[in-house]
């Protein structure tokens, strides 16, 4: 493993598989135990540096670090570092001076974790940067797919929704490609980036035609406000054309799973009967998130012997 986890491209097939295998080992080690805690990172300090609200990701990282016995500091800096008065660099150096070994950063600006990684000696984990990437989300999604379907190589994944603004989409496209999956992105053309043609994916504007061949359908959150900037005419029309409802679910093969990174807009991109169906892995993804983040922190901070990279 490298020192940081900034984007999916930081993980080659070996690294990505190692994270997933490590998460599986952690799950196995903790299964049935009353005290769900490992001593691996005792004495190490992990800082959650969150410039954006994100209850679920922050709690997931916090729990992951605590289950590895690390000390955890939650630093919430709403809004931008600049508007707050202190620069990201100053904040990072302050945290490091206090002895942090790893900084988990969530930031509204794409590339903020990359900047941070140049200013600190410890590890940096990207917990979501702007519209760029969210690599641990992609890892937990891959872990969930592998647990459910038993494999990743050749799995046909359909990603649906606001790809343009989605860091989850970018990380999943990169990681799933590395892991050998076959990815199709589906969205109205307004919600696909110019340049999507250079991605290792198939692009479709028509959800109904791709569903019968999908092993995994991953729904992305779509903000209703996007219609104000004319990305689509109305929430209702979006939902009709790109939402996953019971009718569309019936087009799926029997074993196909439905995923969503949360938080969901029920009735918008996903109907309640789909979200709550047996195909849905949404709750499972949350649980897997803790295991995968434990694996990432373990491998970055405690897993590899000194000097190896």
């Amino acid at each position, binding site marked *: 493993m490298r020192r940081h986890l900034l984007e999916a491209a930081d993980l080659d097939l070996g690294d990505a598989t190692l994270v997933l295998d490590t998460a599986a080992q952690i799950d196995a080690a903790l299964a049935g135990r009353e005290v769900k805690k490992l001593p691996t990172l005792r004495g190490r300090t992990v800082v959650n540096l969150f410039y954006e609200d994100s209850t679920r990701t922050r709690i997931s990282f916090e729990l992951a670090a605590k289950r590895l016995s690390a000390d955890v500091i939650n630093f919430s800096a709403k809004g931008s570092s600049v508007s707050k008065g202190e620069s990201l660099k100053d904040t990072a150096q302050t945290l490091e001076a206090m002895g942090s070994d790893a900084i988990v950063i969530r930031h509204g600006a794409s*590339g903020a974790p990359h900047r941070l990684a140049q200013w600190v000696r410890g590890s940096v984990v990207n917990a979501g940067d702007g*519209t*760029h990437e969210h690599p641990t989300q992609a890892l937990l999604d891959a872990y969930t797919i592998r647990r459910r379907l038993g494999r990743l190589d050749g799995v046909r994944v359909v990603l649906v929704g606001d790809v343009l603004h989605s860091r989850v989409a970018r990380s999943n496209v990169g990681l799933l490609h590395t892991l050998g999956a076959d990815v199709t992105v589906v969205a109205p053309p307004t919600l696909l980036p*110019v*340049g999507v*043609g250079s991605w290792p994916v198939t692009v479709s504007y028509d959800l109904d035609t791709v569903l019968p061949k999908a092993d995994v359908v991953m729904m992305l959150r779509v903000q209703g406000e996007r219609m104000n900037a004319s990305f689509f005419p109305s929430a209702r029309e979006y939902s009709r054309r790109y939402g996953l409802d019971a009718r569309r679910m019936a087009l799926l093969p029997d074993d196909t799973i439905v995923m969503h990174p949360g938080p969901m807009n029920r009735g918008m991109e996903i109907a309640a009967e789909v979200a709550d169906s047996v195909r849905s892995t949404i709750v499972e993804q949350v649980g897997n998130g803790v295991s995968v983040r434990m694996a990432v922190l373990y491998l970055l901070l405690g897993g590899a012997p000194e000097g190896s990279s």
Partner: protein
Amino acid sequence: MTTYLIKNARPYGEDAVDLVLRDGDIASIGENLTAPGAEVVDGTGLVLLPGLVDLHTHLREPGREDAETVESGSRAAALGGFTAVHAMANTDPVADTAGVVEQVWRLGQEAGLVDVVPVGAVTVGLAGAQLAELGAMADSAARVRVFSDDGHCVADPALMRRALEYVKALDGVVAQHAEEPRLTVGAQMHEGDRSARLGLTGWPAAAEEAIIARDVLLAQHVGARLHVCHVSTAGSVELLRWAKSRGVQVTAEVTPHHLLLTDECAEGYDPVFKVNPPLRTDVDVAAVRLGLADGTIDAVATDHAPHAVEDKECEWAMARPGMLGLEQALSVVVTTMMSPDGPGPGRLDWRAVADRMSVRPAAIGRLAGHGRPIAAGEPANLVLVDPAHRGTVDPAALASRSRNSPYAGRELPGRVVATFLRGTPTVLDGKAVK
């Protein structure tokens, strides 16, 4: 006033001659000249060009003297071989009155390193709503001829039309920052494959080209002069070529960074490479080079944009756009346009370099004493360049108050050895005289 005797310099890279500079002018040119009492400058192996003229410089004074002052920017300009620079209007307060342009002009005179030529704002406060008092600025001591809201586009087509028409009476020109603002809301970098992957909001080439297309039609319609700032896309070059073939009075500039760098620089998210318009693709770089070579693009202009450390040492989206350019402009032109391994049709010789960096920008800005031929009786605004020198750019060694050079650590050819402003050296032995 000291007399200077330049020995064995090669005007435009041609045969070596001697020159005597006296009382601000080139007194004589010839072989084996002598001038009793003159300071001798050895020009052996050096290329002599007319002093360079920049149509596009941000000197930040008044308002952001922590980033640059008229004096520090003038020194950077002299070290880059310039004898005149146009100072953009987006200062604080904005240069939209005779008072502010005269202040900037006077600061330039006091510094005495280059002729600082203020650009006047087109609209009050650069707000794009109401014409500034263009006539008052033209009639002031600063004698403003170039008007620009640079940093902002004059986006309102009716206002742009009026501005183009109005400055005809002043022998002026509107220098347009071509950027359709509705297409660049939140834009961070060139829109394409890289922006898609990096998750940075895209700045589409069409946002520049749409304004250029509109403005050349307006300029033709009202018979006015238009100048297009920092052309960055292949499509823009094509539009300009078309407009010129139709006889539109349009001129255009390209920056050194758009001649050399691409959006690949955004990988790593270092905002020193954030600039407006953004760095584009290889295809665009090739097109602007070709456009400069064939004269479709008239001038190289630096868009020298100093920024304080804290405005660049931050997240990409929060950083201010812009990069330094004055001190490396000539070197970048040498490396991109004169390289023997560069593409044949895209190459310039020294006469063409003088044309694009001195003659034409001086003509666009209506500067009488600059961009003149190297001949007896002409003003002694000159620069001596060592074309054989290669150096590595060290931002800490720059004369600018800011350090946001995109060329840090890069080896570039060519070095300015001496610059003369009306016969007085501002740079000697590669060092600023004051």
